């Protein structure tokens, strides 16, 4: 407890760990239960029964729900602590100034007083450290350098895991834990069918009717717990590596939950598609990570930003840096600095330039000497700027600029995969195979938002080139997804494409510098999209797992709570004034308008969101109208439809309330007054202002001391408000048109069952466009032809190469050897052996001729003996005579 009050950041760590504890508990139970089931002994049987036996129990749900609810409580407590510690920043600034003062004392005071000053300095530094470490902490995860590392903090030597709590983290934590808790509660109702010992799956047909399987109530909550842990860990992380780890973990949770009904071929296909598509994104993520690791040498967000961005303040963290551009002072720090690498006299030098091919890297401890520089004299302002605080600029480190762009894009590719952005959006609609609460939690509110979160978190990493890519990707996504959503008839798929579209809005906002707007929309969207999905879940549950809107209709009287809460959701997403969606969406449109005003060549970035706002309204109302109004299209479904139980409706109501008022402030009509907006604004990195200084709304600057100047702020505020009105108007008009069309096409009068305009006619009028939308712009076909089939073909080539190529060579050489050995066998048999046999047969012949000498008669032996003696004598004497003769 004392540790928690000392380091309140640990509240969030605890909140992260709680779902993990639940996961471990559940998986251990599951393991023991299955193990006990597998082996047959009295003890195991007892254990099996104690752990729940064959019938799934509710315990798992209670454990998981309690854990996530406790997480929410922890986050809340942590958030309260965080809010009440706002003054820490000021205190740190004061202390730093004091430390600087003490340091300068060394030069003035006599030597004997130095120890005293040093002691004071130590106390001050300790205090700074204590305050700073309140909300941060890290531990070593992998350290391969061992004792050989030159220094502990040498670059790229240790991988850490850690946490860092700031406004963004706190907001995300609250959002995730709250929605997760509500969805857990909803799931207890929604998944109750899984409590049965035998569940019938209507979508899988076997020889004897539908598939019957065991209920999987516990497994669902097991996976949910793991997901909650991963998601919270992702938000908690203070470094990219930890984000990546959680990234993969949420991916696998998504995989497991999409494939929850794995007997369905479509479900397992969708699960695979989701994970593999995400992995494509992850590959990009990894490449980004590698570039950062190799050139910057750290994964810690703060350290990365400090390295690639010029410092905001001088060496003592006090004095702000500024310069004059177009006659106005603007903040200069926190920018990416470009330069050219020049070799002069064998010495490498960096020469600053707006189009340099190198990005300058700054060590975390930069000594600034602003006093030496005179802003007025220098014509090359950026050079002055660098010299002003970094006299050793020429010898500083750098990395190729294009690699910095690539790093940002790599990270963004990961986000594209996770947030289902064009062109990797194809998995999200398929992911609707998972149970609806999963769709709500993972595929609408939290996990898919992780991509947006990461772009926001890593914002300082993105160069201008990367940001424009982000903006366009968002713009294309939001439009494409919305057009597809128009023609969907599956209620969940409409919501899925709407999710993709909304995520595109967020990306667009981030890309055009609307950091606050993007995150703002992320939060509000999480609430209303969770609401919408849960409502659709309630509808599906009420209609006995019927998802086709073409079989619904007129359900309003049967399920009023669901219908009303869903209407709230629809109104929110449509941007009805004073509903939370209105604040955030209009802010995005305003942001893009502001951007387009400065960069007219990118006018599409304004046009697309405005048009899509209309389309969004249209398809959302279409969905609501088709589901709840008019004549029932399918009698069977209609008769069986009923309102869901309280465990499901209560979360709906809570979410509806949040959807309406989460963005409220006072006065209500002013989006700038929104409390949520303010909190997010506090968390906005300075770099956003540095990059988009001419645009961003610089509202709450007193919490970023000494950053920006009042007259800049004033002018920005003016522009922002002025543009906001314009943007609001255009979006409102577009939405209105959407609503009108929706009513004209899909509002059936209850009596006649007729609409004013026939959708069928409209469809026939534009067959090409309809086919394009209905086939999802042919993305699946494109990928199948461009990626999947070529990959399979390559793999077949590899297989064939192994079999025919390498093994062919091996076996061929084997055969060659055999043939050779045959030849050598022939040679052996007929030449070598032939020779040997010849000798043998000759000696045999000689022997058989000679054997005649062996008469067997003793007497002839004697004769031979004598003859031999004579012969030997003769020969000997001949040689002796020769020898004697010399």
């Amino acid at each position: 407890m004392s540790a928690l009050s000392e380091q309140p950041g640990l509240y969030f760590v605890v909140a992260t760990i709680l779902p993990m504890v639940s996961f471990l508990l559940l998986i251990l139970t599951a393991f023991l239960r299955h193990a006990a089931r597998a082996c047959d002994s009295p003890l195991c049987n007892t254990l099996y029964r104690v752990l729940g036996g064959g019938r799934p129990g509710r315990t798992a749900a209670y454990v998981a729900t309690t854990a996530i609810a406790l997480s929410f409580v922890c986050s809340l407590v942590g958030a309260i602590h965080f809010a009440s510690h706002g003054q820490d920043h000021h205190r740190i600034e004061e202390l730093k100034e004091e430390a600087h003062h003490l340091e300068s004392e060394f030069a003035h005071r006599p030597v004997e007083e130095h120890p005293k000053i040093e002691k004071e300095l130590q106390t001050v530094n300790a205090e700074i450290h204590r305050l700073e470490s309140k909300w941060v902490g890290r531990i070593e995860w992998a350290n391969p350098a061992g004792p050989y590392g030159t220094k502990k903090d040498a670059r790229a030597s240790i991988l850490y895991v850690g946490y860092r709590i700031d406004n963004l983290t706190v907001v995300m934590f609250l959002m995730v834990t709250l929605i997760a808790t509500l969805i857990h509660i909803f799931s207890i109702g929604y998944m109750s069918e899984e409590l049965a010992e035998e569940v019938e799956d209507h979508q899988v047909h076997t020889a004897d009717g539908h598939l019957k399987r065991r209920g999987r109530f516990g497994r669902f909550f097991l996976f949910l717990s793991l997901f909650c842990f991963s998601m919270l860990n992702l938000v908690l992380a203070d470094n990219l590596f930890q984000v990546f780890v959680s990234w993969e973990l949420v991916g696998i949770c998504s995989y497991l939950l999409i494939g929850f009904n794995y007997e369905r071929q479509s479900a397992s296909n969708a699960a695979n598609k989701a994970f593999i598509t995400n992995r494509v994104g992850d590959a990009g993520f990894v490449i980004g990570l590698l570039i950062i690791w190799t050139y910057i040498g750290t994964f810690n967000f703060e350290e990365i930003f400090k390295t690639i961005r010029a410092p905001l303040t001088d060496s003592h963290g006090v004095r702000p840096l500024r310069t004059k551009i177009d006659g106005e002072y603007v903040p200069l720090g926190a920018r990416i600095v470009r330069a050219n690498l020049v070799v002069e006299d064998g010495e490498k030098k960096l020469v600053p330039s707006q189009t340099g091919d190198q990005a300058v890297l700054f060590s975390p401890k930069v000594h600034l000497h602003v006093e030496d520089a005179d802003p007025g004299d220098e014509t090359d302002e950026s050079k002055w700027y660098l010299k002003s605080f970094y006299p050793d600029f020429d010898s500083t480190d750098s990395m190729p600029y294009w690699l910095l762009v690539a790093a940002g894009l790599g990270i963004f590719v990961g986000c594209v995969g996770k947030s289902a952005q064009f062109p990797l959006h194809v998995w999200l609609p398929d992911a609707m195979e998972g149970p609806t609460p999963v769709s709500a939690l993972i595929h609408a509110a939290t996990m898919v938002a992780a991509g947006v979160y990461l772009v926001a978190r890593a914002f300082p990493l993105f160069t201008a080139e990367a940001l424009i890519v982000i903006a366009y990707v968002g713009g294309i996504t939001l439009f494409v997804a919305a057009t597809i959503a128009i023609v969907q008839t599956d209620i969940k798929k409409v919501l899925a494409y709407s999710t993709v579209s909304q995520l595109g809005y967020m990306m667009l906002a981030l890309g055009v510098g609307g950091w606050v707007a993007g995150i703002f929309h992320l939060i509000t969207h999480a609430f209303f999209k969770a609401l919408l999905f849960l409502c659709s879940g309630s509808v599906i549950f009420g209609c006995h797992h019927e998802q086709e809107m073409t079989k619904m209709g007129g359900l309003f009287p049967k399920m009023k709570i669901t219908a009303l809460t869903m209407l709230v959701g629809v109104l929110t997403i449509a941007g009805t004034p004073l509903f939370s969606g209105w604040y955030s969406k209009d802010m995005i449109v305003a942001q893009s308008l502001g951007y387009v005003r400065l960069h007219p060549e990118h006018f599409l970035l304004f046009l697309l969101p405005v048009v899509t706002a209309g389309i969004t309204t249209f398809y959302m109302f279409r969905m609501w109208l088709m589901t709840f109004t008019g004549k029932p299209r399918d009698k069977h479904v209609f008769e069986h439809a009923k309102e869901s139980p309280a465990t499901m409706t209560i979360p709906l109501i809570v979410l509806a309330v949040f959807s309406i008022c989460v963005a409220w402030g006072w006065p209500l009509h002013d989006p700038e007054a929104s409390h949520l907006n303010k909190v997010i604004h506090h968390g906005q990195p300075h770099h956003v202002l540095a990059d988009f200084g001419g645009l961003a709304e610089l509202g709450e600057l007193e919490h970023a001391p000494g950053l920006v100047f009042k007259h800049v702020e004033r002018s920005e505020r003016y522009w922002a408000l002025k543009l906001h009105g314009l943007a609001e108007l255009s979006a409102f008009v577009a939405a209105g048109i959407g609503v009108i069309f929706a009513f004209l096409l899909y509002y059936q009068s209850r009596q006649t069952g007729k609409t004013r305009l026939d959708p069928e006619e409209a469809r026939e009028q534009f067959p090409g466009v309809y086919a394009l939308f209905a086939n999802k712009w042919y993305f699946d076909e494109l990928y199948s032809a461009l990626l999947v089939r070529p990959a399979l073909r390559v793999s077949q080539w590899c297989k064939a190469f192994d079999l025919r190529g390498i093994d062919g060579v091996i076996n061929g050489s084997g055969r060659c050897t055999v043939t050779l050995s045959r030849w050598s066998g022939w040679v052996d048999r007929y030449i070598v052996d032939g020779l040997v046999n010849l000798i043998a047969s000759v000696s045999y012949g000689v022997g058989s001729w000679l054997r005649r000498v062996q008469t067997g008669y003793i007497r002839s032996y004697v004769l031979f003996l004598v003859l031999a003696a004579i012969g030997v004598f003769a020969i000997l004497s001949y040689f002796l005579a020769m020898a004697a003769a010399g």
Partner: protein
Amino acid sequence: MSTNELQAILFYLVAAITALCAIGVVVTQHIVRAATWLLFTLAGTAGVFFLLGADFVAAIQILVYVGGTLVLVVFGVMLTAQSPFISLRASAAEWAIGTVVGFLLFGMLAVSLYSANWNFPEPGQTASPKNSMNSVVLGESLLGFEEATPAANMTGFPPGAAPPSRKAVAYLLPFEIVSVHLLVVLIGAAYLARARRRRQATST
């Protein structure tokens, strides 16, 4: 007639008898006659020994050979003397080959004898009772008496190398061993030669 001449005459006489009888052994076809010729050959050889002053050896020759061995041979002849085997004739071709080979061998031996250089320390002496090796001397020699050993160096050493002077060697023990050996052999021969009644029974 000097001693030498007498000795020469006696030698030629005895040698002629011996040689002729030996040839008779070879030539005769009748086994009993061959035994008779052999008797005379052996006796002649004993005579030669006498001429060479080896009285004791000559006596033993008569005793053992003529008295023992030959009797044994004659017994053998008698035991196997059935008519078909008395005179087994060799073929004429064999005779021809045998004669040629015999002459060749004899020629070879003769050539080698004549071409050899008998380099003895002292030239040969004529045999005389004085320096004949009678049985007493031989007996002493057998026992290894120093005095009985002739004072001469050993022969057969390469020229230049000083031949070691010889020491007395006692041959009694080998002689005894040979005697016992003879005894054993005789007993063994008797055992081997005993009649077997039922050849079939032993062979199966």
